[in-house]
């Protein structure tokens, strides 16, 4: 059982929906990023999605692209991303961390070495955008064997025929991408998302969390109402990009978390 499984058991017992927050590791710099991450659980975040910076984030909109660039320009590396998790784990041993990014930095480090290092750093799960089920032997299967959850994205283009393949080696939770598009673009609508979540849940016992296009406490509330939880990324990253003090960023996160938790 990973921290992710434990977290969902706990939320389930309390009858609560999950609130997941995405931030880019090292944005705007290492120290500020660490301070933000350390403050997330106190702001009501149930699961932290930690962005792994990459030069070519093909599924991300401008907000997250620029966050990655700020991090990389500040000298952020894979090593330092893992250090962030390690330092966070000194103060928090229960909040799950999911590393989200693209395959090349992982492949470049070497999959086996990466998995050992990630596990040691206290990472619980991976979301790797450019690894569909067709490429499961690359990282998904080795990650599961190493005790890390591999969380797959299901999308509006994942039809019924394809869904079983997407769910097959998924663990931890299923991440439903609410829109066809990139992060931070269109807005998710609960009326569209609800039936899709129902469709996915009829095929799996895993929790279904919805992300992309959620940017206000109301949206977080509406989406969490029709799913097992909601993810917010770009809206939080925008606050960091605007240079808001950490306390303000965390207050915004808390408003989103409260929205999701009211569901």
């Amino acid at each position: 059982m990973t921290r992710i499984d434990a977290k969902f058991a706990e939320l389930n017992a309390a009858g609560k929906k999950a609130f997941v927050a995405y931030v880019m590791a090292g944005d705007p710099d290492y120290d500020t990023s660490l301070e933000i991450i350390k403050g997330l659980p106190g702001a009501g975040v149930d699961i932290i999605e930690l962005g792994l910076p990459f030069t070519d984030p093909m599924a991300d909109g401008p907000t997250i692209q620029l966050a990655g660039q700020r991090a990389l320009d500040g000298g952020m590396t894979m090593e330092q991303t893992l250090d962030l998790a390690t330092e966070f784990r000194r103060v928090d041993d229960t909040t799950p961390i999911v590393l989200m990014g693209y395959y090349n930095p992982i492949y470049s480090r070497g999959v086996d070495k990466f998995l050992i290092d990630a596990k040691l750093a206290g990472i619980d799960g991976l979301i790797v955008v450019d690894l569909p089920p067709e490429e499961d032997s690359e990282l998904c299967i080795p990650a599961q064997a190493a005790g890390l959850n591999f969380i797959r994205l299901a999308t509006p283009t994942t039809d019924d025929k394809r869904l079983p393949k997407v769910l097959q080696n998924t663990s931890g939770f299923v991440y439903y991408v609410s829109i066809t598009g990139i992060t931070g673009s269109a807005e998710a609508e609960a009326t569209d998302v609800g039936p899709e979540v129902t469709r996915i849940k009829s095929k799996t016992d895993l929790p279904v969390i919805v992300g992309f296009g959620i940017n206000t406490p109301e949206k977080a509330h509406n989406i969490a109402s029709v799913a097992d939880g909601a993810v917010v990324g770009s809206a939080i990253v925008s606050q960091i990009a605007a240079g808001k003090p950490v306390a303000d960023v965390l207050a915004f996160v808390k408003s989103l978390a409260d929205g999701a938790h009211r569901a």
Partner: protein
Amino acid sequence: MSNDLFNSFMTGPDENGRFGDFGGRFVSETLMPLILDLEAEYEKAKDDPTFWAEMDDLWKHYVGRPSPLYHASRMTEELGGAKIYLKRDELNHTGAHKVNNVLGQIILARRMGKTRIIAETGAGQHGVATATVCAKFGLKCVVYMGAHDVKRQAPNVFRMRLLGADVIPVTSGRGTLKDAMNDALRDWVTNVHDTFYCIGTAAGPHPYPAMVRDFQSIIGKEVRWQLEEQEGEGRLPDTVIAAIGGGSNAIGLFYPFLDEKSVNIIGVEAGGRGVNAKMEHCASLSGGRPGVLHGNRTYLLQDDDGQILEGYSISAGLDYPGIGPEHSWLNDIGRAQYVSITDKEALEAFQFSCSMEGIIPALEPSHALAHVMKIAPTLPKDHILVMNMCGRGDKDVQTVARHLGFDMSDTEEGRSAD
């Protein structure tokens, strides 16, 4: 060797889109159903004689194929060695080999009922070819082009706009070809229902590398019969040579010869200011290592942490940090040899072609020609060398003028540049 099915180099990719360990389908889930659909449609079209009949008709009457195979006698004499033939794909409609592939993809898009075509472009040649064929068929066309390239290839930008395409300057990342490809992929995930992504080189997720290769293979197929026509039945080239950006014109020339053991195959990458630690080049094979980008595993320019690096080349069409996966495989198994040529050498070859043969080449094939100039003198006179003259140089005249210190600022054309 061509009889030995078990050792054929022409059977790839496998059902997972792999050439050895290279290639694959490294895309987001949103795109996965789309590329599977494309693969199924392409497999159907490939076996459909009406598809190829339409291609052949347009290749002949719209593009002007077959392009000539020309014995460059003055070059041959001047270099004093191998007999040099140029495959004149620069004479195609739109001025480069790019249109060979675009026609195939657009006909496929029409069969699939897609109404909106998107493309990425570096030098602008693929963008122009796509805009041209879209105009011909009345399809909406959107071309993503790095903001930096929009400046250095201004004439092509205007051409695309004349042809009715929307040219979107890409400022994300560093504003070059790889960023244009990122933005095209972002467009595709957003507009999944009506949009067809027409990729301009033999790279990207499966089935693109194989599909683009198949469309460009018309180059090598023509060379085969044209050379027999001029040199006698059964005569194969001894060496085939082509420039490599993503590798589409090269694989188009190479592929029909892969199983002919006697044929030497040489790909020429852009060496920029030299294949050095500062990455002032675009030689993915000579100066990169395997990684995953834009849907496939291949050799990439990257740092120790797996971050993609910007290459550099005088030629916008070669300025890409990756290379098609089939080339990575051919390199690793040793079937083809890959070398690099610097800006300076390419500029010399550019002028050599102008003065020796009256052919103004694009800067891309000038790289291939520079390598021809190195090896031809070392080869015997009965050695037949075929080089792909894959594009004409009109688009590069300003760049070359600048590098040669020729001031064009007084001319109308000069003033409208940059």
